């Protein structure tokens, strides 16, 4: 992996111990553990947008929260510009969580929930400056808040400073959240489903805003989403997660155009397309995502996989490269050397 990456995640695992009932204590049962994120690795270059996509419960949000210290990693390491987050300086270059939180910012899904109703826009956007004691005078603070608001598209800024969240529309709220993330001039933005609560027309505006920030400021963005419909417009690379693992990762166009993992293929086939004339072959997986408390052995996708073979029940596939940076975790996907031979393409198993 490239060393000039803004963010590098190596073998990250996050486990949640389940709360035990009194019965469990009496019977001395082992505490159960939910593997929310399981051995996930990826890196993010400067100015790059990586989309982390998957259904609810796949671990994408947990991963993002862990990166910014809102959750605790059970295993693995997180490197910000080559410096280990929360690491010991003795083991090489390290960065404190406090400093990371100054240089990386998170934008949450729900703009109605992520703003304190009793604060003004000024309070909200200035909060990072206050927390990190970065603006000396009130005047300087005001100036930086104004700049951030304008950059987030709330113009003229003075109209918004004294407003409370309930006086803003959904899109304006999300812009305020983004402004408060911008005020510290971060190098990395974690965007956790930033548009999923917004209406179509507003959604497009926010996505365009994020895109503009990436272009003008070179901010790297980790974009968490459940909506594969929007990633094509926005992300350079796409990682698809299933039950805590990355099952496929690669350049967005490659993954969307030529998905290799049967899960990715199914997921893409059911994304609604706004075109009544398009009649696609859809792969609707039956049942629901299994309980993460009781993961199936072998490939964790095999119980729902339309092309699973016997080996899938026992062997757990690792990510293997199929072409360039396109990597897939499936036993039936041929590694890079055979990539050109179409006969190994799992698409043929499906007849489609």
């Amino acid at each position: 992996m490239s060393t000039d990456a803004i963010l590098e995640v190596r073998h990250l695992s996050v486990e949640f111990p389940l709360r035990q009932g009194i019965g469990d204590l009496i019977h001395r049962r082992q505490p159960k553990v939910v593997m929310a994120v399981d051995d996930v690795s990826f890196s993010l270059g400067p100015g790059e947008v990586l989309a982390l996509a998957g259904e609810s419960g796949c671990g994408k949000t947990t991963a993002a929260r862990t990166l910014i210290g809102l959750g605790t990693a059970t295993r693995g390491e997180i490197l910000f510009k080559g410096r280990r987050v929360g690491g010991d300086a003795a083991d090489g270059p390290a960065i404190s969580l406090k400093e990371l939180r100054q240089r990386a910012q998170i934008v949450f899904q729900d703009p109605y929930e992520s703003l304190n109703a009793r604060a003004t826009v000024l309070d909200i956007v200035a909060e990072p400056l206050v927390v990190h004691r970065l603006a000396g005078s009130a005047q300087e603070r005001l100036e930086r808040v104004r700049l951030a608001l304008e950059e987030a598209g709330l113009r003229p800024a003075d109209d918004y400073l004294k407003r409370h969240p309930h006086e803003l529309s959904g899109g304006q709220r999300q812009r305020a959240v983004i402004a408060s993330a911008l005020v510290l001039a971060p190098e990395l933005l974690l965007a956790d489903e930033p548009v999923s609560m917004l209406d179509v027309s507003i959604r497009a505006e926010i996505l365009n805003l994020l895109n503009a920030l990436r272009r003008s400021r070179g901010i790297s963005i980790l974009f968490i989403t459940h909506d594969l419909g929007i990633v094509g417009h926005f992300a350079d690379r796409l990682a698809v997660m299933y039950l805590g693992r990355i099952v496929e990762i690669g350049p967005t166009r490659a993954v969307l155009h030529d998905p290799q993992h049967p899960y990715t293929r199914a997921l893409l086939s059911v994304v609604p397309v706004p075109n009544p004339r398009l009649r696609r072959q859809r792969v609707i997986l039956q049942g629901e995502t299994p309980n993460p408390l009781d993961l199936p052995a072998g490939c964790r996708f095999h119980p729902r996989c339309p092309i699973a073979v016997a080996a899938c029940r026992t062997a757990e596939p690792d990510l293997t490269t199929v072409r360039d940076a396109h990597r897939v975790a499936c036993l039936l996907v041929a590694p890079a050397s055979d990539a050109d031979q179409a006969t190994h393409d799992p698409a043929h198993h499906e007849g489609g």
Partner: protein
Amino acid sequence: MTEPPLLSVRHLTTEFTLADGQVARALEDVSFDVLPGQTVGLVGESGCGKTTTLLSVMRLLPGNGRISGGSVLFKGTDLLTLSEREMRSHRWTDIAVVFQGAMNALNPVMKIADQIREAILLHDLMDRKAADRRVDDLLELVGIPRARRNQYPHQYSGGMRQRAMIAMALACSPDLLFADEPTTALDVMIQAQVFELFKRIQAEFGLAIVLVTHDLGVVAEMCDVVVVMYGGMVAEVGPADSVYNEPQHPYTQRLLAAFPDPSQSADLPEGGQDLATIPGTPPRLNALPPGCRFEPRCERRIDRCTEASPALVDVAVPGSGARHLAACHLLGEPEAGDA
């Protein structure tokens, strides 16, 4: 137009009394038809009045809401002229509803089977024993194992709750099903399963479905006819194919452009491409514009747009036989005698 419509909503107008005492027209002059066995998509952004339309048709508006004009013809009967008691007998037996986010739409302290059976017994359709058998059949139809019939809603997953809700809606064999954002809180795969189920029951029972949603993709995949709503009015109505491929109302045009098409995304340039946007925000009920409700956000507005609210005009390709209407001053004035 040979077949008489199952549901015909005509000039429906609904008002809400807001907290400050102001009366706002949440629905103005809403008209559309639903033919038997058809799937109609009621689509629009939040606050456009799509759920209010549903509640008005069912006469289930909250205390501050009031239907002030128009008619709702179901098989020729105007539901708005009925007494409350008569209206009750139409609910669920003729028109049933699958509500949004089935978690709260199901009673948390009542077993699933009992909730389904309740409607059957209420409308005196069969005796208790037969009703129990019917509940089992319905659960099997929607794919819920019989072993789970006596569980409570909190023991179900989101997808299963929505299936249970659908089973419940089918209990009295209605002719029309309203589905209000039936998959909003669900994952795409579960959403696909639920829509598959909708298609199956429609094929099996031939009922008409009105799908209330904000998702243009879902409408394209599910619906024969689209009703695009904006600010409590119908902006455009027509066959899905015409509306998506030849949208006439500026709002529909912009909305479709703002909606990303994943089937096209492989052709996008590296690093993506900006989506089209609609500047501004939808009107709030307490500050409705005097003329066309889309006028403040419309790039093609003319003087008349601020003065009068446009009526629906026929924009169908001549000779196509399709009924495609749009409400925009740019499209001309309605001819006399138009509905």
